[in-house]
């Protein structure tokens, strides 16, 4: 089907498809980025827009940042100022049916009854159906009334303006720093543990010949088939028995270094303790990482070990000084993938963390997203961008390792 057309046409078709699909792949992320920079009212606006915009309107000779009502006013009328009565001095919009040029028909609640009465009023501005009400936008609580008016859509100037302050505010609104600290503890402690233990164990499974080795390794591999839901329920009990669930107190606290350090120390170690279910098991090796490292170790020629043995190295020396340095690329892959797994993992912390102080990013975001009441979508999106950013940065910093790692774990035939 393709062969009949010229190579140039083929190339063009390939480019066309790739660009089209790229747009589809990028759109969700760009939209998230856009939303994270919008003012709150725009995140719930039906007006479809990629870019964050802020509306500006000239009100009484002064240009204000404004919020535009979702719906236009329904009927022609006026903005009037009431000249007498309980609402004296107030400025309001009245449709033609309620204002005849000199008198305004007002509804007022007196005790529990609605009273209708007419009061003298003067027209400030004539307005028409289809115009929009705009209200001055103030960032903080402001004394006194906010400026407002009603203008045709053409008078509203939409300026593209990125609200970068959303990011700073989001990290205050959502206890972001705390979540990041917890996630880093889980990720880094687990990463160190899994790299060290998995390589030690992989060494025992590959560089030493002993009876029963391959059978035991096969059992380890076979248990990888068992889905996590099988073990997650009993694991809860195991962690509880080991004292890993619930509030954790450090065994001793150095009091001689001053109270500032003491509270930091206490806080740090109670975090490490409470996050134990998420990182401690990694210190005993994981079947998959052992498998990956074992594959790598087996490609290293046996002669290297033999030569070292003749030179009088013991097994641990061979492991630490010869094999480990050679296996660095594989260990980097294991470390990287563990870090990303920990950063992304949802179910594990959801089950084993109950105290919000120890929430990781993933369940912290979920907790914020699912809480009752309105969600500040611009903050939530900013928090999501901040969650994704480190992983993307990591990807660009270690692109080769990534591709290598996926190929390594994906090509085991």
């Amino acid at each position, binding site marked *: 089907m393709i062969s009949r057309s010229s190579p140039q046409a083929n*190339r063009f078709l*390939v480019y066309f498809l*790739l660009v089209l*699909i790229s747009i589809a*792949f*990028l759109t*969700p*992320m760009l*939209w998230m980025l856009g*939303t994270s920079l919008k003012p709150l009212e725009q995140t*719930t606006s039906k007006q*479809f827009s990629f870019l964050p915009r802020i509306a500006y309107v000239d009100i009484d000779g002064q240009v204000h940042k404004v919020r535009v009502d979702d719906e236009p006013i329904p009927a022609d009328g006026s903005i009037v100022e009431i000249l007498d009565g309980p609402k004296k001095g107030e400025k309001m919009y009245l449709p033609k049916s309620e204002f005849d040029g000199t008198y305004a028909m007002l509804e007022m609640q007196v005790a529990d009854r609605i009273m209708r009465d007419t009061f003298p009023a003067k027209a400030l501005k004539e307005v028409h159906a289809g115009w929009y009400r705009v209200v001055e936008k103030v960032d903080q609580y402001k004394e006194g009334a906010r400026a407002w008016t009603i203008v045709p859509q053409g008078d509203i100037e939409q300026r593209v303006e990125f609200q970068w302050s959303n990011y700073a505010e989001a990290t205050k609104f959502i206890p972001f720093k705390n979540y990041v600290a917890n996630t880093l503890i889980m990720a880094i402690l687990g990463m160190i543990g899994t790299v060290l*233990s998995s390589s030690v*164990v992989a060494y*025992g*499974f590959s560089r*030493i*010949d*002993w*009876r*029963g080795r391959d059978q035991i390794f096969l059992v380890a591999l076979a*248990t990888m*088939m*068992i*889905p996590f*839901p*099988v*073990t*997650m*329920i*009993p694991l809860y*009990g*195991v962690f509880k028995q080991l004292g890993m669930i619930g509030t954790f107190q450090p065994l001793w606290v150095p009091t001689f270094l001053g109270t500032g350090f003491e509270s930091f120390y206490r806080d740090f170690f109670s975090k490490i303790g409470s996050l134990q279910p998420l990182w401690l*098991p990694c*210190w*005993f*090796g994981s079947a998959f990482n*052992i498998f990956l490292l074992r594959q790598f170790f087996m490609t290293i020629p046996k002669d290297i070990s033999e030569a070292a043995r003749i030179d009088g190295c013991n*097994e641990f020396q061979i492991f630490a000084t010869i094999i480990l340095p050679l296996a660095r690329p594989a260990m980097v892959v294991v470390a990287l993938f563990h870090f*990303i797994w920990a*950063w*992304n993992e*949802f*179910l594990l912390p*959801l*089950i084993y963390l109950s105290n919000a102080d120890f929430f990781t*990013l*993933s369940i912290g*975001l*979920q907790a914020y*997203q*699912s809480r009752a009441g309105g969600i500040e979508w611009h903050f939530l999106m900013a928090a*999501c961008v901040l969650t994704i950013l480190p992983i*993307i940065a990591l990807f660009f910093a270690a692109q080769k390792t990534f591709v290598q790692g*996926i*190929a390594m774990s*994906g*090509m*085991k*035939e």
Partner: protein
Amino acid sequence: MSGMTGMEKRNMMKGLLFISPYIVGFSLFTAYPILISVYYSFCDYSVLEPPVWIGLDNYKVLMQDGIFWKSLWNTFIFAAFSIPMGIIAAVMLALLLHTKIKLTSFFRTVFFLPSLVPIVAMSIMWMRIFNPEVGILNGIIHFLTGLEGPNWLGDESWAKPALIMMTLWGVGNAIVTYLAGLQEIPESLIEAAQLDGANAFQRTIHVTLPMLSPVIYFNFIMGIIGSLQVFAQSYIMTGGGPARSTLFYTYYLYQKAFEDYQMGYASAMAWILFAVILVLTVWAQHISKKYVYYRGGA
């Protein structure tokens, strides 16, 4: 241990010493939980009180549990669409990327990036995309066709397709494995087919795809294991709704275990999940004999 030479014994001791961390970890975090989970599945166990043996009751009740069947069905539908669609999309994109064009690494990065997005951020982001009023998806549908798009996550018949669509967005990981597979196909093979008069389409069907079949098979197995355990998306985005249309198996299991504290019941569900995964992978293994081509007859 008799019959072993001193050397063999020493090696065995060394080997066991090296794997000892794993033996401890395996016993504590894998073997014991697996065994006790079997026991729990025959018990009434609410955490607060010790487990009480009830024989096969959990399994019997499960067979009568309409929600159990519903969640199993939902999961099957999800897997039945997302796995093949994911494979087709990833293979096609990998083939496109494998053509000798400029900017390949740029496109590869673009396709890969979404698969890096953490599932929670991805879910939150797509919730907003699927929002019927302010979401970009319906915005685009309206812009292109003038029609109002569906209420994706709020509509019983659209919620599953929405989640499948989101899954396809994260297909980049698989693309990289296919690209690695494509790189290993010897140039000479393609050239030979070209000399025999095969056109691009025929070369793809008769040479490239068979050579790629081990990778496809690998992703197929991973797809089965992964999509039967799909959880976070529905937990975050839909809470299993509307009308339980996105209540997937693992989510129902989670509800039973950690919301209703029916640990025995949930354990029985977990073992059924294992059985399902086992049956499906054995089936995949079986059909792979017919379709998967291993070089060197391995």
